[in-house]
């Protein structure tokens, strides 16, 4: 199984490409007015989860 599917216009977007942007891009709002995950390295946490899931799927 691979998480990277080829992207046709408006159709399947590879999750890995989407996560590059969602987890490392976008406006980061810091301050007391938000429930903050600002101190959480989203990329690290999520990619660790992804990779361990993929490894589980790939290995017999």
């Amino acid at each position, binding site marked *: 199984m691979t998480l990277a599917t080829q992207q046709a216009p408006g159709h399947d977007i590879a999750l890995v490409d989407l996560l590059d*942007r969602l987890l490392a891009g976008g406006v980061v709002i810091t301050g007391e007015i938000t429930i903050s995950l600002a101190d959480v390295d989203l990329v690290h946490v999520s990619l660790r989860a992804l990779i361990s899931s993929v490894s589980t799927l790939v290995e017999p």
Partner: protein
Amino acid sequence: MADALVYLYAVTDADHPEPAVDAGVDGAPVRRLVAGGLAAFVSSVDPVRFSEEALRRSLEDLQWLETTARAHHAVVDAVARGGPVAPVRFATVYLDDDRVRDLLAERGAAFAAALDRVRGRVEWGVKGFAVPSAAPAEPDAAPGAGPGASYLARRLAERNRAAKGQEEALAAAEAVHRELAAAAAASRRYPAQDPRLTGRREEMVLNAAYLVADDGPLRRVVEQHADGPVQLELTGPWAPYSFATLEEQ
């Protein structure tokens, strides 16, 4: 039961058209909040599932992550079709609507500047993979060398070739990036994706995003390098996730 929390997707001009999207994260309807000449697109979400603690746990759950990321993206993408948008980092949650309105009022100038930077522009992604080098020429064994020595010579030549190939691919990727960046209003590099996630054997040597008004020049650069040492893949158009940043106040 505690009050719902407010999940924030993106900020736009106040008069931004209604996005064509049925639901956002967790199946929640998407609403608009307006303050200070800006609009925020939000959903009311469950206070337990979207608490800080629950989010930290959920981020490690691949199924939740994929479903929620795609739902988040569906909203941002729909909003982006209507005009300039400043997408907000995934999993940004507020205690209530008023706090989102406070944000719009307090950071209004910075959001307006961010929207102006992306106005009329979209993001394209370019990934580059090192093209595996051609079959090796059989290295000449040193005259009089025994079978052990020629085996070692072959292994060494193979390893040198692989290292040289990678070096060349990385250098070529840098050159391609400079050309792509010259064809764009802004660019941003991402770390190479893990090969376990790309599902490809070739090494990723470029992972970048480019902000452009017209994708023609970008496509031409990609086409010009079609037979080069780096295989390029274009993705997009994306909402300007990589370029919506607030200047420090």
